[in-house]
């Protein structure tokens, strides 16, 4: 019986096995990287909207409070998208001829909602409630980022489960005074000696128990 394999066959086999093993590991790492990437989480990607609404202009430059438009945020699960009535409160007098605002005027005139695209969407098996977070002093900026610096609106944080869990395990450093919850710039606040231990005090006052905050049914009901 003649030789089937050449002397180099063993080398080829080992090389192939090694490349296949490395390829599997690389594919797993690549997959994990993609799942965590901004491309999948959409963090930092502006969403194209029917009207190029600028939070930078309305919040950053004019100083409107978040609740002027998102007026359900203290009461309900959803922060609330403003009706066109809210937009036209000012724009009945300002920028009345602006072409970019035509969809807003049409919406108001025809009583037809503007089809805004969702920016900070959560998977539908998550029951997130704005009201309790606002009432306990989790500032808007903690999840939504510096919205006052966004000329178009994008998702500031990945909003994956790890993002929620990080805070539910250790809420204290994120808590702020409830009456300043819509404040955007907290530079220097945490290092101010006057605010030392604020988070821990807020935890005691509101009976926040991290051990229970990570129960599955806190978010998945």
């Amino acid at each position, binding site marked *: 019986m003649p030789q089937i394999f050449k002397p180099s066959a063993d080398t080829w086999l080992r090389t192939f096995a090694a490349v296949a093993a490395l390829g599997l590991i690389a594919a797993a790492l690549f997959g994990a990287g993609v799942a965590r990437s901004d491309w999948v989480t959409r963090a930092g990607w502006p969403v194209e909207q029917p009207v190029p609404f600028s939070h930078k202009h309305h919040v950053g430059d*004019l*100083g*409107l*409070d978040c*609740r*002027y438009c998102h*007026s359900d945020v203290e009461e309900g699960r*959803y922060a609330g*998208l403003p*009706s066109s*009535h*809210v937009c*036209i*409160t*000012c724009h*009945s*007098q*300002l920028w009345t001829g602006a072409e970019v605002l035509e969809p807003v005027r049409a919406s108001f005139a025809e009583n*037809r*909602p503007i*089809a805004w695209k969702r920016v900070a969407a959560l*998977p*539908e*098996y998550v029951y997130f409630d704005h009201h309790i977070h606002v009432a306990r002093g989790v500032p808007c900026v903690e999840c939504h980022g510096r919205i006052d610096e966004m000329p178009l609106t994008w998702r500031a944080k990945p909003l994956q489960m790890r993002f929620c869990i990080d805070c539910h395990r250790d809420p204290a450093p994120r808590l702020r005074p409830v*009456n300043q919850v819509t404040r955007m710039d907290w530079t220097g606040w945490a290092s101010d000696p006057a605010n030392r231990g604020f988070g821990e005090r807020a935890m005691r006052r509101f009976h926040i128990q991290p051990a229970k905050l990570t129960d599955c049914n806190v978010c998945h009901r």
Partner: protein
Amino acid sequence: MRPWLVLLLLPALAGCDEMSRQPRDDVYRASPLFADGAAMQAPPPGAVARDAPAWDAALAERPPMTPALLARGRERYRIFCQPCHDASGSGHGIIPARGFPQPPDFNSERLRQASSQTFVDVIGHGHGVMFAYGDRVPPGDRWAIAAYIRALQLSQHAPAADLAAGDRARLEAPHGR
């Protein structure tokens, strides 16, 4: 199929994420159920909200003036009124600075004589170029804002004789120079 092949394919199930979008009509969503394509529908004409009596009762009676009412009023005023009416109530807010017709000064004689009920009505139904805020400012908050407007008016028109002795002394002390 061979069992080992099924085991090998199991991890592929992780790619299925159907539950992140569920067949239900959440608020603000599009829905094929209704003619206008929106999941949220306005109540039919003539519908009465379950909390309508409580709403009307809160609107009808002015709550007693308390520090808590004033604090609530100040917070709501800063959210909804300050952009036009300014922190002082002068009407020189940032929105009029951008071209919106300037609202009247809360410290004017006419508005100092106006009743709290007038402010509550204007917040709820609007006035002139000011749109109604009734959908965003519930009755209790309207009264709170009206109370805070009273405080703003007092802040600009307090008679010196009403000040506590210490404050009075500071006011009348000769200034530097």
